[in-house]
């Protein structure tokens, strides 16, 4: 078992207003899965991914990554856990604006303390796998939205984490570009054995998922395997 959540609940508090975003989610993800978390906007997809990745702490319940209880770790320990085991791809603003595509792809490896030559080699390979090698020296502002998302995936590929969490990675892309990105992620899942959990509310992307978990109003309301 790679990821397991148990009775996971999250209530956002803003002054006296309480917004329940998750209400008791039990989810298990095995290594090698290509799983979609689907559901309408506001159903709690982002919250779930954030809690699994230790970006936030649950109000109740447990999050396990392999043998580690994520919600019991300190802020710094959670950051370190992400550094070595979890990759993130967000909807937008995935890249550090002042770094080139290559530097962005190598950034996690740099944080891990890998020497420049080796990390650049790996980042370059990853960019190549995503068809981005020619644009390695461009800054994010010189890349299209689809290209930026590819660099973000390349960053995850170069870092080889146990788990990649992608929060609506195609939401800002046009239909064709979005489909190509999902197909590429699926290919990496098959060929490199990377585990993906991605959130989406776009039904067309779900066809590529091997497993779909349906969220509604902070609860799991259904599940499909293909």
């Amino acid at each position, binding site marked *: 078992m790679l990821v397991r959540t148990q009775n996971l609940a999250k209530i956002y508090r803003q002054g006296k207003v309480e917004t329940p975003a998750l209400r008791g989610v039990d989810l298990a993800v095995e290594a090698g899965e290509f799983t979609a978390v689907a559901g309408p906007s506001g159903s709690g997809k982002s919250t779930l991914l954030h809690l699994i990745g230790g*970006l936030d702490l649950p109000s109740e319940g447990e999050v396990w990554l392999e043998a580690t209880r994520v919600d019991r770790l300190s802020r710094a320990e959670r950051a370190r856990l*992400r550094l*070595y085991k979890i990759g993130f791809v*967000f909807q937008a*603003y995935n890249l550090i604006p002042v770094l080139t595509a290559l530097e962005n792809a190598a*950034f996690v490896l740099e*944080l891990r303390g890998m020497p420049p030559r080796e990390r650049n080699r790996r980042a370059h390979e990853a960019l190549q796998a995503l068809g981005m090698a020619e644009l390695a020296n461009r800054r994010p502002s010189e890349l299209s939205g689809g290209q930026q998302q590819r660099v973000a995936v390349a960053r995850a590929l170069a870092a080889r984490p146990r788990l990649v969490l992608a929060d609506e990675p195609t939401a800002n892309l046009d239909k064709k570009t979005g489909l190509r990105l999902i197909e590429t992620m699926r290919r990496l899942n098959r060929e490199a054995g990377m585990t993906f959990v991605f959130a989406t509310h776009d039904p067309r992307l779900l066809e590529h998922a091997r497993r779909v978990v349906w969220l509604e109003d902070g609860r799991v309301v259904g599940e499909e395997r293909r």
Partner: protein
Amino acid sequence: MIALAWRNLWRARARSLLTAGVVALVVALGLALLSFTWAAVNGYFATFTARIGHLVVRVENYEKRPLVERVFPAGTRAEVLRVLPGAGVEGRLLWPALVAGERRSEPALLTGLEPGGRLARSLLKGAPLEGGAVLGRALAVRLQKRPGDLVYLYLPEALGEGSGLLPVAATVELLEKNEERAFLALPLATASRLAAPGMVSELVIFLPGVVRFSQQARLELAQRRLSAALPGGLEVLRWDQTVPGLSGMVRVFHRMMLLFVGIFFLLAALILLNTVYLSLSERVREFGLLSALGMTPGRVFLLVYLETLMLTLVGALLGLLLGGAIHLRLARGFALPPEVAESYAEFGLPPVLYGELHRQDVLLVLLFALAAALLAAFWPAFLAARLEPARALRYVAA
């Protein structure tokens, strides 16, 4: 990380440059102010030591002795010159006297000076000593004497003639009015004939090349060597020992200037804080991303610090260049505006001053800059490190 910090700095180029400019200005201003401070201190040093010498030889426990034991042979001069070749040595004889005018007599301190010597020049401001006695203006007024008149002197306990009738050569104004009321100068030869033939109260020593307050070590060395060579019963005092308050005042003055510079840097720190904080608030989402990618709070803290330190370093280097240039200009010699110079000349500031900077001053200014950066970066760095990544990622700039 260093490259990242550096590039982040230049995202808001105008703001960063402006802030670096402020740091540069404060560093340059600090250096210029300190250079100027030392110039003024050296000016006063030169004036004061022209009046009291760098070193003085006198009888030990001078104050506690009876008059006749306060003098020593003028021939000691040869001994001084043997130990300190090239030094200027002038004898001075001091003896209490009663000066008789037409209607009243006044007590005075008879001062025997070498005509044409440095002491005579700095004390008498050009009044001719050769023609007889030079009286303090206030004393002359009380005695109702003018140049050309005669005064009668009586010296108690004198070893020499003890009394005499002398023409008034000139009158002179002194800075200290108390001193002026009792001032009476004679050529050293005349004074010693009256008071103590062949004797002096002090040998005042001017060391060639000593023109700065900071050359104290040379004075101490000369003092030690001379003390060892002179016969017993005599002591060698440095200028700062004869007028003990003076060097303390210089130190206080210097510290006050450092305090001013420190206050400048406090203001610079506020501007730095503003810049760092602004650039942070524009990048909340990005800090969320950094955290999501695995940057620990400690490293985030460090990143903000690095950016601030680099910005300050750029500013400090520019300031060092600018301040250095200003200092070099001051070091070649500068004059104060005439109106200012005139009012300060009274207190002994020479017309041309020479800027001077000490290594400690430069280090201290750079240290101030560093402290300003450390101070300014702390709060923003702390905030950035404490950002909740999930919240930061959802952050929409207001």
